[in-house]
């Protein structure tokens, strides 16, 4: 299983990475988690019946989407664990820089944007992430909306990219939104910063702070 996921991760990220013992243990812990039972079973079934090297990523993605959300969550969590730290520093840096341009927020967290990049790559729109990066970087001063009007093929992935950073969930089509693979994506969603609030379930501060205007 680990070997298969390792090959899959390499293929998705187009890099070579040797997982450390710690990473392998993290992966195994995720896969053994009883809450991931459904996902584990589905991923196992995919692993035993499908060779990503032979069929290509689009077929794999189609396979995943036929199954439940837990499959996607488990696979993404597994990949996330396997790939940390993100192996391609250049791609990571390019993605983070463009994320700041697209969202209007500076100094985005490295790990958070890496998680979002990985998630985008494994979803159906992932095939167009590279093209979107190229187009956006080709015109660093351009109005993004105008740029997307000239390149409608990348508009869906750019919208999904921004949505994911603001909300934490991943839209895969007009009606389907998948939960994050990692709670960090939810708690780090930019919506809360824009709303001058805090993510629900994280303490907002002292008792009664909600009675007052947020502190700057």
């Amino acid at each position, binding site marked *: 299983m680990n070997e298969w996921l390792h090959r899959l991760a390499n293929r998705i990220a187009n890099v070579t990475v040797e997982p450390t013992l710690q990473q392998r243990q993290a992966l195994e812990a995720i896969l053994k988690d009883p*809450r991931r039972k459904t996902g584990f079973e589905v991923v196992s079934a995919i692993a035993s019946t499908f060779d990503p090297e032979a069929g290509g990523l689009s077929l794999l993605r189609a396979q995943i989407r036929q199954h439940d*959300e837990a499959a996607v*969550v488990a696979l993404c969590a597994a990949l996330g664990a396997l790939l940390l730290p993100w192996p391609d520093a250049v791609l990571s840096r390019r993605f983070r820089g463009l994320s700041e*341009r*697209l*969202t*209007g*927020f500076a100094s985005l967290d490295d790990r958070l944007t890496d998680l979002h990049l990985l998630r985008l790559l494994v979803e159906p729109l992932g095939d167009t992430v590279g093209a979107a990066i190229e187009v956006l970087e080709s015109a660093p001063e351009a*109005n*993004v*909306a105008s740029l*997307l009007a000239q390149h409608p093929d990348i508009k869906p992935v750019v*919208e999904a990219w*921004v*949505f994911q950073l*603001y*909300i*934490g*969930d991943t839209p895969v089509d007009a009606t389907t*939104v*998948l*939960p*994050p*693979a990692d*709670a960090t994506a*939810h*708690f780090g969603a*930019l*919506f*809360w910063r*824009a*709303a*001058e*609030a*805090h993510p*629900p*379930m*994280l*303490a*907002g*501060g*002292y*008792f*009664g*702070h*909600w*009675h*007052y*205007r*947020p502190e700057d």
Partner: protein
Amino acid sequence: MAERIGDLHDVIVVGAGVVGALIACRLREAGRDVLILDAGGTLPGRDRLVENHVLTARRSPGGPYRAEADPRAPSMESDSSDVIQPPGPPFKSTYERMVGGTTWHWFGLTPRMIPSDFRLRTLYGRGVNWPIDYADLEPWYCEAERELGVSGDHAEQDGLLGGFRSREYPMTPVFSSYSDELVRSRIDALTFEGIPLRLVNTPQARNSRPYQGRPACAGNSSCIPICPIGAKYDATVHIERFARVERGRGELRERTVVTRIAAAEDGSISHLEATPPDGNPVELHARLYVVAAHAIETPRLLLLSGLCRGNTHVGAYLMDHFNRALVTTTDEQTFPFRGPPTTSGIDALRDGPFRRLSAAFRVSLGNDGGGRTFDNARIIRQALSEGRYGADLRDTVRQRATRLIRAACLIEVLPDPANRVSLATDKDPLGLPKARIDFHVGDYEQAGLDRADKFLKTLLDGIAPGGSQTAQASAYDGAGHILGTTRMGATSSDSVVDSFGRVHGHSNLFIAGCSTFPTSGTCNPTLTAAALSLRLADLLITELTPAEVRS
């Protein structure tokens, strides 16, 4: 053949939610031998439940709990639910079968019912009267507020709509939200149908200071589906206390599904049949039995057991409260998404002569943006559809997300014999018939829904003139208040239990909780259920005390 095990307990309590836990705790503290049974298990730590919620696509009140449910006691939200509904207007509220029950994701709001709610038939010719009145319950309301830990404004609530208070709240009020203060400053001149409107702090089982070992609310803004720090009361408080009591004997058996209540010829209950986790059925014996399994499982268990034969009231009069909401933008920032989801409300429309014609309602002011009316994703999608990116996007989201006010009406539902729980032909994982719910919206409730819509528009037009308003898409939402189905009354000709919860015709069987409510009133029902439970516990302690000692 069921295997008989164990002792003769003083009391067996079925259900480890707030009602069962309170009764069990009281009895054990009085030195009694108490066994609690629950179909579900003890949940893992709150951190794991938080993660469950985040990592699920269906972020509903039951979201964190679906993955933790025992397969033999599935969540009502799951595909394998043991509750089915035929096509038609659905019953929208759900409940949990697990230790702690539905209080895991209750709102925590604890207004009292008002005196008129107990006399609806006499005053307005609607529904039925309760066999008790507000004054009977008032001391138990005080006791329930102490047990649950309620924060409230005594002076503001004392006398509200005729409801007197004999004791202060154990804690001072939870601070109102920043948004409430804006509403308060603009509501003074508003009336609806000639009724002046006033904002009132909402009493709630949420700590405004450290209380009984639990912390003060830190404003995590996630009371539904879970308070991650335990500042909001849930029934695990009393389950844990039950385990710590040094008097009497006490045991909690979890993942043990009660499948039948067996009665002797004279109607007295002889034993319970239950299936523990190992799957081997057992018989359990006690002097008294209390069923506190909420308003769907309780009548289901009575029906499965063949009790109360010929009593057509078993399962009947299923009620909820309907929820209607309207969200507006305002000209000033309200900074929602911080603190409890609601801290204030409007009580003026909970009673009046209009109840002859249409349902009454209580109004709550939301502090949670769009709440269930629309999610935060809609704000992002709309901004993206307008071609906004970068600083423009950030500032637009800030502009729109920080200027929201939500108002919602909690609308009364009358008891209707056609709204009921019965046994389905489908079977659950133990081979027992599932519960079937038949439910429809009556004219009285529809009139209340229509009136609520008019009210919400009047209110938000007045508070935020020219604001952009969004109404909830569905005709109504459930409030999670599952009521009725084994109602209290004088005799079996009009009810299932007496005013304490004793089942007519079964002298040692008691039902506790929301299923005994004859009418719904307009407030969140948990405090009333808790007060009734403490009143019942007091009776049970007396009944278990030998007559010579009592005298």
